[in-house]
């Protein structure tokens, strides 16, 4: 194990090198000591999460390619950022995701079939955000940061901060979202209201085709300084460091000490969505360089080196991932289309004359086909 130390300004907090060497601890510029003290079982659990999340994601991409999903936003390459932060959440913490947070969703205990219902276009809803403490996927870039800000203000008002078992809120977003006005408003509000909120930016280097330098002149984590709260950059391909940094920021928030911006430095290995072709705007050598920093390979190397896991374990994890992805595929193909009349549900709980009239006419219209060939 390497000894560790403080990362120079602008560098990453890292607890597991790409080669799989563990670093004992890293001290942040504010004196926070980050370390990963997991049991062997927990290390194996993180590895299992990473492998399963990647496999399910690959299955969803394949389903889209076969015409079974309308679209898919792959998390390939960002597994450690999502599993590390997702596992750092405590049960009472609330998460506000983008549409790419399938790994965090998995860590929240949500059945991975649920987002597929949305991407297949057969679902009028999904998981219960209150039950799983994981809001619905937000598609409009950055909007969830303000939802999270308001939610955090509600948490404060309810007096649920200030103790070890307090509540914290985490808002996920990407590097592109940092250019949105509402994300900057969220930074301002969380700062002035000292909200129990962690801003978790997965800097995957691209907003669809636009590279990071189109969004910022300075490292993203340093923007936090201008808003008056700490910012920290972590190796987003390092599940141990991401866990440690996120856990520390969440605990800081739950104790009533205010927000933190985490920049999880990572790379979107695949396309923005299945509608996108990244070979049009980035070169293969860049992708290959990031391939060498793969978030799963380094954990496996570590587990092998430290003899925490053996060949049988790796085979068993692969088998489980295969089984779960097959199960996912089977269930996707069986998803029924919703009944057309349900399109009127949940617009207004007690109805509204304009909607009620439309529903009434629609039911009559549908009934007019009864007994016909349609």
């Amino acid at each position, binding site marked *: 194990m390497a000894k560790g130390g403080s990362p120079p300004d602008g560098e990453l907090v890292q607890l597991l090198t790409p080669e799989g060497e563990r670093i004992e601890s890293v001290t942040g510029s504010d004196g926070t000591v980050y370390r990963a003290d997991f049991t062997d079982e927990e290390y194996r659990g993180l590895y299992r999460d990473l492998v399963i999340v990647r496999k399910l994601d690959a299955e969803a991409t394949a389903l889209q390619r076969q015409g079974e999903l309308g679209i898919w936003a792959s998390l390939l390459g960002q597994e450690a950022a999502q599993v590390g932060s997702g596992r750092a959440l405590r049960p009472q913490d609330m998460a*506000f995701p983008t549409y790419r947070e399938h790994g965090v969703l998995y860590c929240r205990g949500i059945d991975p079939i649920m987002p597929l219902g949305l991407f297949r276009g057969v*679902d*009028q*809803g*999904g998981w*219960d*955000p*209150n039950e799983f403490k994981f*809001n*619905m996927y*937000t598609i*409009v870039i950055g*909007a969830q940061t*303000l*939802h*999270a*800000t*308001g*939610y*955090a*203000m*509600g*948490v404060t*008002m*309810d007096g649920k901060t200030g103790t070890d078992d307090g509540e914290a809120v985490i808002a996920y977003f990407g590097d592109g979202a940092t250019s949105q*006005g*509402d994300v900057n*408003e*969220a930074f*301002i*509000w969380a700062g*002035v209201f000292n909200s129990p909120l962690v801003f978790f930016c997965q800097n995957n280097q691209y907003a669809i085709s636009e590279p990071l330098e189109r969004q910022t002149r300075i490292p993203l984590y340093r923007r936090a300084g201008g808003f008056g709260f700490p910012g920290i950059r972590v190796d987003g391909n390092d599940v141990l460091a991401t866990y440690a940094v996120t856990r520390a920021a969440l605990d800081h928030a739950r104790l009533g000490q205010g927000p933190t911006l985490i920049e999880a430095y990572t790379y979107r290995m695949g396309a923005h969505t299945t509608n996108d072709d990244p070979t049009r705007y980035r070169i293969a050598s860049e992708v290959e360089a990031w391939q060498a920093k793969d978030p799963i390979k380094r954990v496996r190397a570590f587990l092998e080196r430290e003899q925490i896991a053996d060949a049988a374990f790796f085979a068993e994890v692969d088998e489980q991932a295969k089984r779960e992805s097959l199960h996912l595929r089977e269930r996707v193909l069986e998803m029924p289309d919703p009944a057309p009349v349900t399109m009127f*549900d*949940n*617009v*207004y*709980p007690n*109805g*509204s*004359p*304009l*909607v009620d*009239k439309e529903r009434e006419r629609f039911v009559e219209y549908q009934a007019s086909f009864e007994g016909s060939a349609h």
Partner: protein
Amino acid sequence: MAGVKTDQDVITYRAAVAEGIAREMRRDPSVVCLGEDIGGAGGVFKTTAGLFEEFGPGRIWDTPISEQAIVGAAMGAAMTGVRPVAEIMFSDFLACCWDYLANEIPKVRYMTGGQVTVPLVIRTANGGGLGFGAQHSQAVENWALTIPGLKIAAPATPADVIGLMASAIRSDDPVVFFEHKGLFASKGPLPPDDHVVELGKAAVVREGTDVTLVALASTVHTALAAADTLADDGVSAEVVDLRCLIPMDLTTVLASVGKTSRLVTVEENPHQAGWGATLVSVVVDEGFELLDAPVRRVASANVPLPFADALEDEVIPTADKVVAAVRSVVNY
């Protein structure tokens, strides 16, 4: 008591806003207010006067100048069980936070399959007639009408401000609450403590037999003034105060048209895509046989609100214009 009453039984429209909010805040500790200058300043229109003194900073949140954040945070706070009452100072500025009004808030219940509701109110000072120019005078109630999932209230009297405020805050739906700037100084009876006006129930504020005038907020008074003039000519106008655009009380409108057989809408929003267009389309669809004359819409001209008083007065509907429209359908 929040607000300043003018005497024992009369209250201004302006004070009624604060009174309506205060009654709900006393009744329900989960109600909070957020917005710019709503605290110690009591609101730039003094519509939140007294709330900060009574309820304190824990429930009256003076916020940074960020319209998106006011409305976006209201949504997030509502998810925690709080009932936020968010103020957007001028309704023109709803455009500054349109993503949250159009894409986020009205979709929450739908996109979660009914699992999450965001009970919140967005209050805003709406309308012209005060010479505030093109960006601080618009009547934009029709903007909200384009978005399924929102409810829309626009009271014409102090009593309705209080009664509709109670319903809006208690509603599990997001409600956009238009307070008319031109009515703030108007006075009316102070309603009793338990006064609640159900959303989506129009009021027949003047009975008549020859023509139905459907109006909203400030134009209720325009329509009533026109009805007075018409009465002198022997034309009996019935005036319906729609009170809410969503739910739209078409039952009351159709019943009135059934009685009068003529319809004129009086709208402050521009004629193009104004709320009367939706209302009239339903009336001609459901009640074509009730009509004995073409329907007329009196609305603001399809121009930005001019700064010059002399021009603004011509853009916004007047009682004279309503009278002219009514004569054209009565003489049809």
